[in-house]
């Protein structure tokens, strides 16, 4: 057996091939233009590239190709450049499925059809025609999964599939050299492909064939050009990711003559964009926990790259802003470690990301917040947080897993991915979710999108079936939100307005707007939440209070958690859970494309004069708390007593109009 093996190895070496590799001739024969472009773009002043370029110019092309391939086969890149997003738990299952052209995209298995020449249809949108599917497919997150499967099992099918997919993509999707919105060359997908897949695969040992390596290198060059010259021009999280992709190419491939210019350009743009796209309190201007995370992951990678490239980077303003972004990300975290579902968000495990980010910034308080105080050092001072630019107040009693957590959103509408959620409230009591946000579910227009992004998917008020006016898309200064944290309670309040619909000619209505103040008071001792909705109207209107409960709370027990209090109001109460026929609703979405039935509780009544509606949100384990108004109904200053089993447990005096204010709160 041994002589036969030796002969085989000698034959392969004689062919100029290492095992598992192919000769360079096919690429030179079939795709000479790719090599011409590649060699023309190499930096002749780079010490390793100079002799290779000389060979190429002197016509010794086979030698030049071999030398270039050998150089990059041996070269390695730093961990900051080759890191990929966290791989899923079912790597082998996904890798096996990929061999059958089946991919796990956006929480569902998608079979991608083949083209007549045996490649993948890279424009495939899945059975529901969702363009997000085509975008995800072109990010090629499957490549690191296949690579991991190859490393684990040693099965060459996985390595061959990586090479096959890369060759297929590169050869079937020529670079358009202009701004392009196809799924293959949309700037965001170009950047994500580079950041999350291609650079890691390129520098992986014993993974690529020579043909694939050279094709990939030439395509990476085109990706750099696309990100430099044909990227998004409208800002947002796309722009940050695209510039980071450009920076990664520049740092991973200094052998390109354009790389130095790309690096300077990307560094300058990224620093400016991080400052421009976030508020001073650290919130990202889209005001969604999901997109906060998307930008934070780019920021974290930026920090890692910059810390290596420029040691003075830690003194830059952008470094402090990125730290503030993480601090905000920690501050809004729920007792179970997930982030809020505000605007277009999925359930993101903020705690896991914080547990890996705290060391970069030497912030053991983030670790303590993420672990409920089991590790790290808990922050001193109150646990509640107020973010004036985001207009969000997070009322809580501690950082433990059994904490109460109330998220009051009185901030701007957001620059993108907005929901109609003015003065929405989410809540956890005793560490259990009670009131939830709807989540993003999907981006496809239609009734489902309308529900998840509309007011019906939020705990808010509707006047004559219409939501309140949303805040501005961007805040030029913090919006007026009253916030007070005392020894007895935490208080937050803000005012919105219900405008009347425009006339049929498009002219503004003459009908009066209706100011609406929502005040949220969390009692630290009794661990209950008092919510006051104050409306000033002199005409008759229908008011609908919409409350969305977490799916874990059964429909028949939602009334135990939340009940109206105060002046007797003739409420009509309807509960809707998991309704799939119009008017559909009663769902929340933890992940893209997933939805869980959740009870939507509607309290409807009519008002025709200034009124104050009161609500008590409490854990049903304790005796119910009642609200007694001492002031006239609808008075601008509300004097209130909270009663439990006939006993006064708290007295409050709050101004609700024109500017909300906590005047007094005490436990007798």
């Amino acid at each position, binding site marked *: 057996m041994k002589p036969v093996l030796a002969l085989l190895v000698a034959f392969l070496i004689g062919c100029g091939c290492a095992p598992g590799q192919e000769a360079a001739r096919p690429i030179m024969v079939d795709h000479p233009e790719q090599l011409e472009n590649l060699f023309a773009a190499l930096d002749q002043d780079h010490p390793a590239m100079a002799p290779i370029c000389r060979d190429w110019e002197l016509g010794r092309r086979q030698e030049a190709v071999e030398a270039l391939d050998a150089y990059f086969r041996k070269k390695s890149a730093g961990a900051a450049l080759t890191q990929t997003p966290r791989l899923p738990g079912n790597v082998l299952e996904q890798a096996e499925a990929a061999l059958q052209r089946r991919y796990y995209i956006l929480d569902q298995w998608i079979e991608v059809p083949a083209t007549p020449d045996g490649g993948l249809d890279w424009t495939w949108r899945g059975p529901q025609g969702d363009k997000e599917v085509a975008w995800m497919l072109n990010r090629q997150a499957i490549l690191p999964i296949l690579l991991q499967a190859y490393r684990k099992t040693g099965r060459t099918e996985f390595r061959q599939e990586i090479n096959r997919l890369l060759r297929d993509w590169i050869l079937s999707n020529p670079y358009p050299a202009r701004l392009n919105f196809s799924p293959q060359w949309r700037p965001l997908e170009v950047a994500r492909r580079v950041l999350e897949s291609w650079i890691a695969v390129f520098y992986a040992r014993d993974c690529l064939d020579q043909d694939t390596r050279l094709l990939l290198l030439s395509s990476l060059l085109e990706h750099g050009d696309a990100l430099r010259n044909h990227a998004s021009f409208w800002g947002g999280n796309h722009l940050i990711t695209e510039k980071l992709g450009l920076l990664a190419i520049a740092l991973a491939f200094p052998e390109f003559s354009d790389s130095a210019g790309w690096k300077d350009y990307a560094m300058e743009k990224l620093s400016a964009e991080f400052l421009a796209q976030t508020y001073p309190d650290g919130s990202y201007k889209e005001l969604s926990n999901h997109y906060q995370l998307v930008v934070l992951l780019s920021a974290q990678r930026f920090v890692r790259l910059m810390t290596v490239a420029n040691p003075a980077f830690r003194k830059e303003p952008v470094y402090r802003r990125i730290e503030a972004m993480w601090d905000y990300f920690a501050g809004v975290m729920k007792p179970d470690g997930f982030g809020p579902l505000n605007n277009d968000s999925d359930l993101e495990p903020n705690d896991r990301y914080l547990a890996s980010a705290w060391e970069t910034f030497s912030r053991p308080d983030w670790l303590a917040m993420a672990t409920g105080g089991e590790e790290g050092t808990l922050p001193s001072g109150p646990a509640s947080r107020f973010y004036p630019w985001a207009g969000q107040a997070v009322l809580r009693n501690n950082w433990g897993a059994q904490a109460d957590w109330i998220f009051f959103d009185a901030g701007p509408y957001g620059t993108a991915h907005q929901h109609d959620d003015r003065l929405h409230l989410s809540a956890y009591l005793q560490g259990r979710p009670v009131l939830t946000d709807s989540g993003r579910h999907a981006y496809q227009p239609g009734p489902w999108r309308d529900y998840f992004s509309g007011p019906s998917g939020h705990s808010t008020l509707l006047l004559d079936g219409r939501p309140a006016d949303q805040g501005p898309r961007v805040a030029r200064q913090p919006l007026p939100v009253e916030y007070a944290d005392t020894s007895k309670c935490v208080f937050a309040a803000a005012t919105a307005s219900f405008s009347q619909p425009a006339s049929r000619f498009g002219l503004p209505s*003459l*009908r*009066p*707007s209706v*100011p609406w103040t929502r005040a949220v008071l969390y009692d630290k001792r009794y661990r209950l939440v008092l919510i006051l909705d104050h409306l*000033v109207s*002199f*005409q008759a209107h229908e008011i609908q209070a919409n409350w969305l409960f977490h799916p874990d709370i059964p429909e028949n027990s939602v009334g135990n958690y939340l009940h109206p209090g105060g002046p007797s109001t003739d409420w009509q109460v309807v509960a809707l859970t998991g309704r799939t026929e119009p008017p559909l609703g009663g769902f929340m979405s933890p992940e893209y494309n997933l939805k869980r039935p959740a009870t939507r509780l509607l309290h409807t009544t009519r008002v*025709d*004069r*200034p009124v104050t509606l009161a609500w008590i949100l409490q854990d049903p384990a304790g005796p119910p708390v009642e609200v007694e108004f001492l002031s006239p109904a*609808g*008075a*601008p200053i509300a004097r209130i007593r909270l009663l439990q089993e006939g006993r006064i447990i708290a007295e409050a005096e709050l101004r609700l*109009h*024109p500017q909300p204010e906590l005047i007094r709160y005490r436990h007798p």
Partner: protein
Amino acid sequence: MNTKKDWVEGILFAGFRLMAVGLLLTGLLGMAFQFLESWYRFDPNYLGTFLAETILRPLMVFITGALLYAGSGWMARRMAVRYHKHSS
């Protein structure tokens, strides 16, 4: 008389007056009906909101209509002046 300028001026004047009367009626009726609808619910605690929302909006429309009514002659003459030289 009966030059092109006169015709244009007359049409413009009539148009402005018509718009002004529309605005006057809208503002006046809006103010009247909203006041009638709301006055008995008036609460002195909310005087500012009541005036700003119930009275001021239609009042602004009424004032705009009144200004347009008063200025319609002047505006029509100014806008028709360019037709003076070409008149026959």
